């Protein structure tokens, strides 16, 4: 009985996903139509990439609100560089820019001596507005479209809409990123250092674990993955507006926490985040199909976040009883 209970608790999110899918499929058979499933897979792309990066930041015991700003900046800069630099140059510069934005957060956090998640919250919130305004200044506030470009944008087209066999290109990008990040987290010394940093910064530092390096690393990964998400996103919609990243930071944090990575740091997994993202996207999709108003959907999302954090804290209480 106890075993069943703990499995249910550990995989509550998965159970919720299955339950939600089942209910929707019964009420609205359109849900399991191929078109809708492809739609889900496409939506999956940008958010999952950003959320995978966010997972590392949260496992490391911090938080990153700057990803929205990073996405805005990377999107407008990358699209503008396709003509002058070519596709490969634009892609590389975009990813590099995202990593720099992320590393910049870490540098500010370290030099500012911000040791708590709350301080990091405000610093990255500030940086988000800085990156966003850079995006607005750089683009002059205007939106760029693929059809305005003079040179080829075939690579971005295939990232946005291409397929390899039954899988979309963006889905393959996700699978590769997931595999690399999962191995990085569970199998490398740097990944372990990140977990230990999130588990107890002071103890990790006093055991000679490179805590500062871990902090730079988590934010750089966060920034890089936000940039990757930005590229997949604007490639799909063939348009880069300087406000394209709006709401991504909250959705990513929601997905990570709903997936079961603790906000307290230390414990978590990128695999859990995949489940979390799936729930967030399916929730949207199902509620849309069921005809629930978008205002109501916002409320649902908020309540699920609160529920996930509540669940997380309950696990903590029970774990401490011994």
């Amino acid at each position, binding site marked *: 009985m106890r075993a069943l209970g703990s499995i249910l608790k550990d995989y509550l999110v998965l159970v919720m996903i299955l339950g939600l899918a089942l209910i929707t499929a019964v009420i609205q058979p359109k849900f399991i139509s191929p078109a809708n499933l492809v739609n889900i897979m496409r939506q999956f792309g940008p958010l999952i990439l950003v959320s995978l990066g966010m997972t590392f930041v949260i496992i490391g015991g911090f938080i990153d609100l700057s990803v929205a700003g990073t996405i805005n900046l990377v999107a407008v800069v990358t699209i503008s560089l396709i003509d002058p630099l070519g596709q490969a140059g634009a892609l590389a510069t975009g990813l590099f820019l995202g990593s720099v934005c992320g590393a910049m957060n870490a540098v500010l956090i370290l030099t500012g001596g911000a040791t708590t998640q709350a301080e990091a919250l405000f610093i990255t919130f500030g940086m988000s507005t800085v990156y966003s305004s850079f995006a607005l200044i750089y683009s002059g506030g205007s939106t760029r479209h693929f059809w305005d470009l003079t040179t080829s944008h075939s690579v971005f087209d295939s990232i946005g809409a291409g397929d390899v066999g039954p899988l979309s290109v963006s889905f393959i990008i996700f699978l590769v990123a997931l595999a690399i990040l999962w191995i990085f987290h569970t199998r490398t010394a*740097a990944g372990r250092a990140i977990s230990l940093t999130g588990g107890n910064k*002071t103890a990790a530092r006093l*055991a000679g674990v490179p805590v500062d390096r871990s902090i730079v690393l988590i934010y750089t990964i966060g920034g890089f993955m936000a940039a990757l998400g930005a590229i997949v996103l604007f490639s799909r919609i063939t348009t880069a507006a300087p406000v394209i990243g709006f709401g991504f930071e909250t959705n990513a944090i929601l997905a990570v926490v709903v997936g079961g990575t603790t906000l307290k740091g230390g414990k978590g997994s990128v695999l859990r985040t995949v489940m979390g993202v799936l729930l967030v996207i399916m929730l949207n999709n199902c509620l849309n199909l069921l005809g629930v108003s978008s205002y109501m959907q916002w409320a649902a999302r908020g309540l699920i976040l609160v529920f996930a954090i509540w669940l997380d804290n309950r696990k903590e209480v029970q774990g401490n009883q011994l």
Partner: protein
Amino acid sequence: MDTAGSEIILSIKEVTKTFPGVRALNGVSIDFRRGMVHGVVGENGAGKSTLMKILSGVYKKDTGTIVFDGKTIEHTTPYESMQSGLAIIYQELNLVNTMSVGENIFLGRFKEMKGMRGTHAKARELLDSIGCKVSTTKLVSELSVSTKQMVEISKALSFQSKLIIMDEPSTSLTSEEMALLVKIIHQLKAQGISIIYISHKLEEIFDFCDIVTVMRDGNVIDTKPKQDFTRDELITKMVGRTIENEYPERSRNLGETLMEVKNLNTRKLHDIRFNLKKGEILGLVGLVGAGRTEIVRALFGADRVHGHSISINGKPVNIRNPKNAKDAGLGFIPEDRKLQGLVLPFSVEHNISMASIERFTRFGFLRKSSEKGIGAKQVQSLRIKTPNVKVAIKNLSGGNQQKCIVGRWLEIGPSIFIMDEPTKGIDVGAKYEIYLLMKQIAEKGGAVILISSELPEVLNMSNRVLTIYDGRITGEFEPEHVPVDTIMRAALGLAGGAL
């Protein structure tokens, strides 16, 4: 003293409590008598804290009966148990730092006290009754541990408590503060209040407890009046085996100079200089806050320093952070086990391996089988009690947790081992094992820098002690040949020693 004559205030019968994988209490029965100070002793993990948490309503018992003051207690919340007259004062204290003394005493009961004026007036009365002079409007965050304890005691009295449980109250008290606590305990006893006094320190048990219960591995081993116990018997019953001495023989094969520290200056420390020989245990003696911990933290690169020059084996080393220190051959057991030593949600294995990650990493990748070997090896060689190495370290007792931290460093074999309060909150048996480890390190040609607030421990373990007062070294002694009060005078800044 006629201990049998007095009436029973609290009776515990056949209480059991099981946590996943661990039987914490195994049919425990104890009678506590009115107006007595009842000592409960036992190693960490013996079940004392679990029992107290059941009494105070934090945990639910599995089976058994508890009768308090004539009423059977089934399940209560901590607040209910306080109201019924059973108060518990935890080691880590339970006060709201940002509120005043008076507010803390009557937290949530301001209305009954007829507002803040009544609250402070009543709080004043309670504090005066135990001879505490602190102002009721002072913030709790500004108080010393000792004064906070007084506030807790006043709070317990405000509930007309008939029984007060004190969980390791003396851990962070100075000897004067301790004397004050003893005075209050006698006073409470005179008012007919019963005290359950939980402690590791045998001196205290023999000093003022009337009855003593020994617990081990979730069982009550013995309960009888203090005078019927001998010191050796008590220790034997606690650890389940005979311990010949509390401290091992000093090791005596001092070699050449291993480390030389010069011009160590920080905001708090002034021109600290000393050297450390191979095979030596060097004790740092001083009051809490004198700068002992600051010295070792600076050495280990944990705090910012204004300047220092350190050489190990004659070669200068530059230690800017703990990683440098580790690479230079230093190991460090920090003062606060939970906050600075352990990564609580992580497993025993990962806690042990965290200082030696480089050893089982190849091309950046962890070799998990080697890591598992490291965990298993240390668990075995240090006799760490744990079901397996995958268990979260928070489930281990304090002594076993501390051994994990020791094992973490032994794995990389440091030549200089810094231990800041290594036996704090650890039971007698585990203490002795840690002493033996120190000795082994020294005998293998390493050196130990030992800080401890327990003076007998430093004096019996160290080859040499430095006294620290107000950020300066005030004396250097060989504790074997110098009377204790000479060392204490230097530690109190009263007289210079043989420097």
